């Protein structure tokens, strides 16, 4: 077990390192993109550009630049943005993280609760029309592009029905920190939570239902029934618990992706200044240090989540451990 953990950790580090190199090569070596020109701002003289190139070490060979960037990012933590000069990158990400966490945690609570209810209901009500109905609902949830759903939500809550009692409480797009005004924080996030969770409710309800139905046929469940346990007990104590293993591991992976910046479409549509939006803005403006930092931040989250899930799964289910 321990060797497995250690091996996973080493693989993790390796993967993160490779990602940083990839990102660096993609952006620092792009034809047509000159970081010095970008730093120099509007209408600089050619001499200014040269001066900046030298000042930022952009005239050094690529491997040296990579090392300098990594050092500034991790060790001295004074890496500054190209678009917003003087602005340190790491504090920027730190400031954006609570926004993403608020969004993802809230949505996660909603989707976990609702999908469990839906999945269990569908499994229990198998054979009635409720089962396919719920599953079609789930499928619809999966089939909607999340950014479009967000736009539709905006259309309804910000514009068409904004003046009715239903949605007059919806504030303009944006974000208020929890510490500043909890009520406003909540109001800003309710619609984004719902929009983000729709996709995952669909996914998880289906997975849970399929898992439940599969474990129904397992021997130990039949044993439990034979022992005379009520259906509900069988469901809640036995099948649900087993199915939750895969549910939880899926959740771990998705949560990692979302916190790592995967919620960027929702953040863009609702104007939430989280890590996803920061990543997107930096990519569009080719702000290389911020791109590097946000992508690494995201990759680390995902890779760690992957590793945790793998290890956890291996711990829970010894059959899966490699020989």
């Amino acid at each position, binding site marked *: 077990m321990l060797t497995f953990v250690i091996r996973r950790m080493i693989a993790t580090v390796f993967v993160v390192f490779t990602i940083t190199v*990839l990102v660096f090569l993609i952006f620092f070596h792009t034809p*047509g993109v000159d970081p010095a020109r970008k730093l120099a701002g509007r209408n600089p003289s050619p001499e200014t550009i040269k001066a900046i190139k030298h000042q930022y070490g952009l005239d050094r060979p690529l491997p040296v630049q990579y090392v300098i960037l990594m050092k500034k990012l991790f060790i001295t933590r004074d890496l500054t943005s190209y678009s917003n000069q003087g602005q340190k990158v790491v504090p920027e990400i730190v400031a954006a993280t609570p926004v993403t966490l608020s969004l993802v945690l809230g949505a996660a609570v909603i989707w976990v609760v609702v999908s469990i209810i839906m999945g269990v209901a569908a499994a229990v009500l198998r054979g009635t029309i409720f089962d396919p109905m719920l599953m079609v609902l789930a*499928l619809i949830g999966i089939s909607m592009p999340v950014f479009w759903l967000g736009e539709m939500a905006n259309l309804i809550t910000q514009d068409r029905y904004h003046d009715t009692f239903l949605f007059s409480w919806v504030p303009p797009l944006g974000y208020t920190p929890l510490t500043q005004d909890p009520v406003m924080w909540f109001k800003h996030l309710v619609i984004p939570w719902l929009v983000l969770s729709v996709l995952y409710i669909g996914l998880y309800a289906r997975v849970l239902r399929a898992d439940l139905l599969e474990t129904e046929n397992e021997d130990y469940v039949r044993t439990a029934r034979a022992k005379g346990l009520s259906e509900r007990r069988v469901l809640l104590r036995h099948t649900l618990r087993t199915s939750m293993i895969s549910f939880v591991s899926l959740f771990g992976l998705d949560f990692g992706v979302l916190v790592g910046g995967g919620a960027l479409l929702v953040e863009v549509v609702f104007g939430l200044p989280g890590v996803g939006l920061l990543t997107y803005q930096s990519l569009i403006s080719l702000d290389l240090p911020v791109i590097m930092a946000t992508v690494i931040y995201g990759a680390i989250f995902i890779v760690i989540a992957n590793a945790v899930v793998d290890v956890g799964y291996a711990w829970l289910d010894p059959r899966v451990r490699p020989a």
Partner: protein
Amino acid sequence: MSTVGGLEHPIDPLADAPPEGWVAGRSPWALAGHKLVRNRMAMAALAVFLGIVVVSFMGPFYADHIAHTDPFTSQLTATTVINGKRVDVLQQGGGVLKLGETPIGPTWQRNYFLGADSQGRDVAARVLYGGRTSLTIGIGSAVICSLLAVIVGMVAGFYGGVTDSIISRGLDVVWAFPVYLLAISIATVLLTQGLTIGPFSISASSLWLPTLIIAVIYVPYVARPVRGAVLSVREKEFIEAAIAQGASNRRLIFNEILPNVITVLIVLLPLMIATTILTESALSYLSIGVQPPNASWGTIINDGQQLLYTRPWVAIAPGIMIVLTVLSLNVFGDGVRDALDPRAKLRVKD
């Protein structure tokens, strides 16, 4: 999208081969096909999907002969006839200040059925053309992705050992890169200058760029199950027996492994197409997917964002098309999976 340890479990529609002397029944493929056809919902979904495909590819016909419009040229000063009256397609704002120019809304007639966009173009015609692009990219990238994944997965699964390790680590890296970030990064970079590898060059506005980008980023999602399928067959006892009997690699691949792999692909394909269509629309919405002058459902939603408060149909219509297409693919995909893999061992999250 992610998978669980469950995917490493073998899928094996060929297991439990009938014992000697049994009367040969239908082949597993025919059985699966029959089951699929009897699945009403799946067939209905397939019909919807094919319907959307047909309608989208009739875009040019609609534009030329029904709407009489060119959905790709600017029509800022165009006029059209509604209910006998000739009106401007872009109409000046009202009140004292007369600010802004608002495109006409849906006429529900042959011309400007869904109204005009901010450049006076016929939205309905564009949605159809957009469908062509979205479907082409969606299906194309799913197919290319599958091809690449088959190669990668089979090489990894078949040769095992170091090759497998390297390939798996490579897949890990691509997988760890958040899908959208990877796509956005590559797209941002390539859309400036296009892509030139040796003698091949793809211009920045070619549809090949988004197709290839999307195909590449989803390779791990397909390669893993393929690899799993290969591994599961390799470990079966009858393979060991076959090898002991001197069966060549080629026979193994074609007779045993490939059918297994193909089953995986068939189950995955509708779901992959659904995923690629969603991904393309997201990238186009962010302006780093399909580039003008081409239009796709995602770019039209992006156009519609600017008109959301005045002419919401520009954003609503392409979204509905995406939902219908993806939904029908998902339902059909479910049907295929039920038909081919009744024990639902292969459960890939969409």
